[in-house]
């Protein structure tokens, strides 16, 4: 994986990008502690196809990249709005 196809900038050197972790579904704010602990710490750490957040540093652009963690090859990339189509509204912060 020497080049990454950035949805905004086209093929760029891998050292222009930063890895941002798995694409995970965030639990509801009302979810159990276990669900949140799982979300924060536990990882599939798959050997094979993964779907991850990546960041193009010079243009501050986040997108989604699918790659293979065994062969070190890119499958495809696409803008995040293909997965996240609606805004996540958090409930107002409780005063403690």
């Amino acid at each position: 994986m020497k080049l990454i196809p950035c949805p905004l900038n086209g093929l760029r050197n891998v050292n222009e990008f930063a890895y941002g972790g798995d694409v995970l579904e965030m639990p509801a704010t009302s979810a159990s502690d276990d669900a949140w602990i799982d979300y924060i710490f536990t990882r599939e750490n798959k050997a094979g196809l993964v779907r991850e957040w990546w960041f193009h540093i010079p243009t501050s652009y986040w997108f989604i990249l699918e790659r293979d963690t065994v062969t070190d090859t890119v499958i495809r990339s696409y803008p995040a709005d293909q997965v996240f189509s609606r805004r996540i509204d958090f409930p107002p912060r409780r005063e403690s």
Partner: protein
Amino acid sequence: MPIALIRHALFAPKRPRRHLPAPTELKRSYDVVIVGGGGHGLAAAYYLARYHGIRRVAVLEKGYLASGNTARNTAVVRANYVTPGSVRFYAESVKLFENLSAELDFNILFSQRGQLTLAHTDAAMRGFRLRAEVNRRCGVESVMIGSGEIAKLVPTLNLVPAERYPVLGGLWHPPGGIVRHDAVAWGYARRAAERGVEIHQRTEVTAVHVDNGRVVAVQTNRGRVACGAVVQAVAGSSSLVAALAGLRLPIVTYPLQAMVTQPLKPFVDPLVSSPQFHVYISQTPRGDVVIGGGSDPYPLYGTRATLDLKESLIQHTIELFPCLAGAKLLRQWAGIADMTPDYSPIMGKTEVAGYYLDAGWGTWGFKATPICGKAMAELVATNETPGLIGAFGVDRFRTFRLVNEMGATAASH
């Protein structure tokens, strides 16, 4: 000794003795199955057989003996961590290493010439003062030294490697050193095998059978093996093997690259590390300069080389040691390292009874080989978690009692 030498010269058998017994058939059952024939697994087998009288032990290794990270680490041993729990744990390991050649009657070539970590910023100096103080209180020798003393310890070091980052001081840790890492695994393997432990190479665990919340057997490419307990010690594949037992871990696997130069005349005595430049070097007794650094920037189950990382290691090595500019690289390699969120290992019981984890060793596993093997053996024999590893259980992520270990050199933070 000379008489033994003469006797050996006159009467030694013509063929060298086998280092390990010839492979045998895999039995249908063992008291303990150790998955992974690296340093950690073999050490656990040795301590089980030698100190706990548990000899119906099989070490199952997918490849060949010590072919994973035991052979790929940079052989550094030190105890100058920052959390008291880690400092005490690694200090015990250093003590075991000091006596390991005698214990195993096998020369592991522990060369204890001290480790020097360089500070290039005020923030690093403050961090090192904390580490020196924590170390002192845990009975580990670590002191802050100034650039004058550094110049005496390492005359070949460039104290102004970059305008912005001159060497301000360092953390000097005299007990640090390097070890002939393969010998550690071979020594443990030999002495464990002498006591009845079976070492099965090219034996891959393909499934773990759990019955009623307790591990009962493992499936291998050579058949099913019933067992009373399983120790998983498979650095680099921890998540994949744990998944066979239905366990999900807080681990992400990154490659870690290293390289070595051609042998040179001795020019640097201590081990020198620069967290600022993400590089550390040591000169082996043979003269090669071993160069290591931080882990790769993204997770991967592969050991390919990347030019970016090699360039960075070489550039920073030459900034620190300009005399190395003409040195030729002999070879490079990589291992795959199981990084945890807090840069500390995961050892202990799991939610599957009888299934013990020895995982999450990231970039700090080799130096823990003896103490981890000893502690895991005690855990398996007694089913009680030894106090020394109590803080490192996988349940710490459920209770938010993380062991935030910022003293891990190659951690990517």
